[in-house]
């Protein structure tokens, strides 16, 4: 097992409120890890620690270690631009830029490397759209506004936009919560494809989704990581009673 992300004694505060309490976990490379737990348990906060998105919030404090490929990304001198290139994030509501499909995908490439040749950009667009299975649908309409796409297409496009900058890790925060069951199933299939090349961490309220697609699952409650194990063990034989109560609907 190769750990892609190693979390050691991670604590996190929003002002005086401690949102993460002494988290220790290993996220394996090229597997899907699901983080489940009730609202406010800290799962999205933890996800946002991994690409330092929380830095955008005033008054936050982080202690401990988050090692990505042996580099502690909590360290103050971390290069956030290259971190966020390496660790991409997909949000609950797809958020394409109000630009064409083409421009959405090459946006990151243009920011990171200005002056990339058109033929290289074309190649990136094709490769990225193919990897999210959108190429055949959109190849003739690449100049169309991304805002005109369906919700599912928008979410796929956002994933393609991430893939275009060649990240290692994809963080997904409730990526299917606005999608209907068919679109959800298709995005889940896409995630299974993507895990061959990327380490995926998904936060989800949908326990069946976590059970279906993830290899490992972590259960969080009140800022603590209560249990972290193989998904099949979490959903058939959880060790902690709090996990059992949550996944069987007895919590609350």
């Amino acid at each position: 097992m190769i750990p892609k992300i190693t979390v050691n004694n991670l604590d996190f505060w929003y002002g005086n409120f401690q949102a993460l309490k002494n988290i220790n976990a290993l996220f394996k490379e090229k597997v899907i890890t699901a983080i489940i737990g009730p609202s406010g348990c800290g799962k999205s906060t933890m996800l946002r620690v991994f690409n330092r998105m929380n830095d955008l919030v005033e008054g936050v404090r982080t202690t401990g270690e988050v090692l990505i490929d042996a580099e502690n990304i909590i360290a103050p001198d971390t290069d956030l631009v290259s971190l966020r290139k390496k660790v991409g994030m997909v949000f609950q509501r797809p958020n394409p830029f109000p630009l064409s499909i083409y421009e959405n995908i090459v946006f990151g490439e243009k920011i990171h490397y200005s002056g990339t040749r058109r033929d290289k950009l074309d190649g990136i667009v094709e490769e990225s759209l193919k990897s999210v299975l959108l190429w055949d649908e959109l190849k003739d309409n690449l100049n169309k506004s991304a805002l005109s796409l369906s919700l599912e297409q928008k979410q796929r496009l956002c994933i393609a936009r991430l893939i275009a900058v060649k990240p290692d890790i994809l963080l997904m925060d409730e990526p299917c919560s606005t999608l209907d069951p068919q679109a959800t199933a298709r995005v889940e299939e896409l995630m299974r494809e993507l895990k061959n090349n990327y380490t995926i961490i998904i936060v989800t309220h949908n326990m069946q989704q976590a059970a279906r697609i993830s290899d490992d699952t972590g259960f969080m409650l009140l800022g603590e990581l209560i249990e972290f194990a193989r998904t099949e063990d979490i959903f058939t034989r959880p060790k902690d009673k709090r996990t059992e109560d949550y996944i069987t609907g007895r919590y609350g």
Partner: protein
Amino acid sequence: MQRHFDEELKGLHKEILKMGAFVQEAIHKSIESLKNRDKNQAQEVITTDDKIDELELVIDEHCIDLIARHQPMASDLRFITTGMKINAELERIADLAVDICQRVLELVDKPLLKPLIDTPKLAVICQEMVRDAIDAFVSRDVALAKKVAVSDAEADKLRNFIADELVNDYLAKDPSTASRAVPLLLIARHLERICDHATNIAEDVIYMVEAKVVKHHKEEL
């Protein structure tokens, strides 16, 4: 938090208990019909097996329905899947009680080959194992389930003893005893198979309660 689902699970629990009661009655009557050479009682067990078959289907459907509608997890999932397995084991036990009664009908008009001594002993072990396996399920009693699983060796030993005696003392010496010895041999086999199914139930109960698989790993008991 109180869950509506708990009421549904209680309903399933009651159905499995009802199945257990029917099956225990079938075994009891099959053994009584053997001891008393009672044709009517044997016939009654054969006839009432349809009721058990029907209940098996009802329980199966109930389990599938609960899985489809509630997508149970953890202990709920283990309870329902174990319930399905126990249901199948109980139905097989009832079929074996029917098999015993069919052997009784073959024997009843013929003179007794020998006084029945060890077969009733095996029948007692068999009834105790089934009763304890069902009780272990009801009370989620792992210690009792383990006791059932361990008793199986005793049943095997007694079955072998009965078989050796029938083969060596009767069939080998006088093949004309076959029509009376073979049904007795089969009855011992049916009883021992019932003990195997009781053992399976006990192993399922251990999985249900402790999430531990002991099936095919008797050394872990």
